């Protein structure tokens, strides 16, 4: 029974960790104010 509880705890923690990471995700940010280029940039 104790082993079962320990395994379930590990599983729940793994799920919580992954859900937290994915919920945080990547920030969308805003559209870049830089223009679409009509001149040749000197460097990247």
């Amino acid at each position, binding site marked *: 029974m104790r082993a079962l509880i320990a395994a379930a705890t590990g599983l729940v923690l793994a799920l919580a960790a992954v859900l937290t990471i994915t919920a945080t995700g*990547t920030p969308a940010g805003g559209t870049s104010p*830089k223009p679409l*280029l009509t001149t040749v940039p000197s460097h990247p």
Partner: protein
Amino acid sequence: MRRKASLVLLACAVFCAALSPLMRWYAFPRLARIPANQYQDMVLEARGATLLDYGTMRAKKVSQVTVVQTLRGDVDAAKRIGKTAGRPVVVWDGLSYVQGPDGKMVSKVPERYIFDAHSQDPVHATGEMVDGDPVTRHGIEFKWPFLTQKRDYEYFDAQTRTTSPIHYKGTRTFRGLKVYFFEQTIPWTKVPMPKSMPVQGITPESVARTGTTRWYSTVRRFWVEPVTGAPVYGEELHQEELRGGTLLGGRARVTAFAGDVKMREDYIEHTVALVEHNRTLVLMLTSYVPWGSLTAGLLLLALSLCLEARARRPRGPAPAKATDPEPVSA
């Protein structure tokens, strides 16, 4: 004490073992995405190209033609379309600006490309276009999906507004990176005149009235880093002709542009460095963390079972009970 430790180790083992598939199959598709706000520019050059002189309507050799490609993510449009589509979406506004050796504009073609942020599948919404013409893309454009496979893909050609296969031609090494080489050939196809012409007063409509048509053919090559799906190098054997009509003064055809368009060296270096960095991040989600945590999980499980077995084992033989001497009777 040992039993408590083995239970803690068991919990850690399950944590690590569960983390492995969760990271690969749940977190990876949700975290490995093209950022909606990406801004990227690229410079390609065609040295010793042939370009049409619109003054004389004759083709001439020029030292260099430069193509500046910019991609800018429209975040608000991505959010709006993503809500309707029910999945994360990226909206790229792109501009291909072609400049002659004198710095003057040869052509500029804007486009709007909408696609799934993870799978790269095209998403169709109002506003999807090439040079102002509404299009419905199939296949990919600019970038391959994460974990690119060794197979042919459907690739959208903006000039013809059509999709055709881009063939996998083998695995190569480019600047120390393992890459997949893809090639697509677009046969001579009649294509629309660009909306922005290099000479003032000439419009696509005025050219159309002369009966002259524009034809295009290209061989497109990409060296794609398979983990990120990002091309680290690309080149195009690009050819354009004007054919027929009164504009050519009786000639059947005249070259409008011909050249081998290649990425500029500093942009190659920049792209390779960027892709190497992003490759590590993607590998963290697809390989390093899943395999690492699975290995750690198995080790911890073994350790936990070992401790549990030792805790259950009796601790040596019990001391023998001293037997009372039997009474001796005389």
